[in-house]
């Protein structure tokens, strides 16, 4: 599904990603862990095409297509979705109008007619239930005055509405209370199919418990320094990152500048 090769990127002239290699196949869930500032969010943003981040090398192929050549909206139509670490507030643009625009743009891309008003409302109703988001949020501005947890819940709600094939969750678990985390994780699991995949950034074991990822990768200073199965995640929860940093330093010495 997704093949990332030697991906390098910078933000405001500062190199952040220094050669990412990662392959994610259909149906797989990969968890990305790593210390603060190691480049996890940067990788997420680069994959969905945030113009703030400049790709300086490498490639990303999504279902055979050159992902990096596509504008963000086309990546979305191709099936990419990102749950933002800090979802943006868009005052005055109601959730309903926002999602109608998103849903119908996607349908237009596929050569389908816009969704009828009642079908659309039905879709929203159904997906709201999945993540437990109250109806009144639909008439509010996008994330306008939403609490931190409500915003995260709203991200997964949007994911449910847009039905992506590849989801990127950037710390969706942070800011959720225990019950909300369960609802959101269960909602996410309900949306999983053998043809959908995900890359999930998290700092917490609880997310590993819910998602049972196929792989866990550790990102440090813009590189994946270690990959393994879920047990790697639990080891990090227990021991932190230092041991990985030490091992990485001996196994793969930094290239000389």
């Amino acid at each position: 599904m997704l093949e990332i090769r030697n991906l390098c990127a910078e933000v405001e002239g500062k190199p952040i990603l220094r050669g990412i290699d990662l392959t994610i196949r259909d149906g797989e869930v990969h968890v990305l862990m790593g210390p603060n500032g190691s480049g996890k969010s940067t990788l997420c943003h680069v994959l969905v095409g945030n113009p703030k981040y400049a790709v300086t090398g490498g490639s990303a192929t999504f279902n055979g297509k050159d992902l990096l050549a596509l504008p963000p909206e086309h990546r979305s139509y191709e099936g990419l979705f990102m749950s933002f670490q800090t979802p943006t507030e868009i005052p005055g643009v109601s959730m309903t109008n926002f999602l109608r625009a998103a849903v119908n743009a996607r349908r237009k891309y596929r050569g389908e007619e816009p969704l009828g008003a009642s079908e659309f409302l039905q879709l929203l109703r159904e997906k709201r239930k999945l993540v437990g988001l109250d109806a009144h949020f639909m008439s509010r501005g996008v994330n306008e005055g939403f609490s931190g947890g409500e915003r995260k819940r709203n991200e997964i709600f949007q994911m449910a509405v847009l039905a992506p094939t590849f989801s990127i969750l950037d710390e969706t678990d942070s800011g959720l209370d225990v019950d909300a985390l369960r609802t959101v994780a269960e909602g996410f699991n309900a949306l999983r199919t053998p043809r959908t995949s995900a890359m999930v950034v998290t700092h917490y074991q609880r997310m590993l418990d819910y998602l049972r990822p196929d792989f866990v990768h550790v990102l440090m200073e813009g590189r994946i320094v270690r990959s393994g199965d879920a047990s790697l995640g639990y080891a990090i929860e227990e021991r932190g990152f230092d041991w990985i940093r030490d091992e990485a330093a001996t196994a793969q010495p930094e290239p000389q500048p």
Partner: protein
Amino acid sequence: MTDPLKQYLDLYRAEHSRIAAGSCPAMNAHRDAALRQLEAHGLPTRRTEEYKYTAVRDALAPDYGLNIARLPLAADPHKLYHCSLPNIGARTCYIINDTVGPVPTAGSEDAIRVVPFAKADEEMRGFIGKYYHSTVQSYDALASLNTLLAQEGLLVLIPKGHRAVQPLQLVCFADAKADLMANRRLLVVAEEGAEATLLICEHASSSAHYLTTQVTELVLGERARVELCSVEETGSNCTRFHNIYADLAAGAALKLNSVTLTCGHSRQTTEVRLAAPEASVEANGAVTAAAEEHADHNILVRHDAGDCRSTLRYKYVLDGNATGAFAGKVYVAPGAQRSHSEQTNANLCVSPTAHAFSQPMLEIYADDVKCNHGSTVGKLDETALFYMRQRGIPEAEARLLLQHAFVNDVLRHIQPESLRQRLSLLVEKRFRGELRRCDGCRMYGGTATNAPTPPEP
């Protein structure tokens, strides 16, 4: 360069008897004073503080014709002109250039009197004379020019205690075959306890250049409530100077809504005098301008008595090479204690070549007041744009949603709901470049939707 004012003064001196003959005594009574003022003070220059952003001399320089002979309308304007805000009002009156069309008779519920000045001056002895020009407190060259040359006017009288249910709509069209100057005058008198909503739609279907001076005077008696909404949808060959003067008695409430959808060169000068305690004014302005459009609002609110309240909200979305100017001044007179004023002006420049000038001011001579003001000039929120694009909303659509939301934040204060919805839709159409084009206008469309749309079938 000769003074562009000269041709107007010369015209008046040569034609004053014909001008007077086509007008009514109440209007004629003020012409000589206006002439003397213009002779004494002249036109503003770029150095005149109040006209810093609008070049009056350039606007008045061309040679325009006037309808001094008062040629009547060729046909019934109700059949000839299409307003983009249909069926909002219970009654619709047309003003073509500066000629008032037939006034429809009122329904039994509707006690509002809509009378051309000439008729009012005959039927209601002394009424026009009592109020005409009564609200114009300070010298303004455009108002004086209007007083000098205007020949027709319309009186809207909301009698004591009458509460109008449906709005009164004035549909104004600029329609000139040759370059024309039109000078229009409106007088709105809301007597004690009267309530009404007025909608003024300003359209253009002019193939020639059109210069208009417009003076709207509002006199609100005690506890009168008036909501005046003026919508501008003109074109690049229109130069419009609209001066609004309002005097409010105790407990009166005025709401002034102004929506500029499209314009050429537009300047609105507003002076509101809160003359007695507990009067209040709320002014909501929304401007969408693109291409070479120029929209300038200059507003002065005088708190001459204590316990009054003023709220000013103006929002501009500027695209292309458009210029938006806002200067708001709230003046609190000595002793006007417990004055309450809020003033905001926010500008969204969606193209790098658009210009916004913002100047909110306070001049306070009382100590127990609560007044604040704020102004912002910004660009579209890139983070929000990206968030929307990630969800699949095309960039052009995302920009449109953000701009529309920005303007809706002002429109939400406009009543009635049917008008608000209609205005919001027109703003959206305008951003999409789908607004019905005025014939002969060279405009339009924002940067996102630059392709010209075909004329409506």
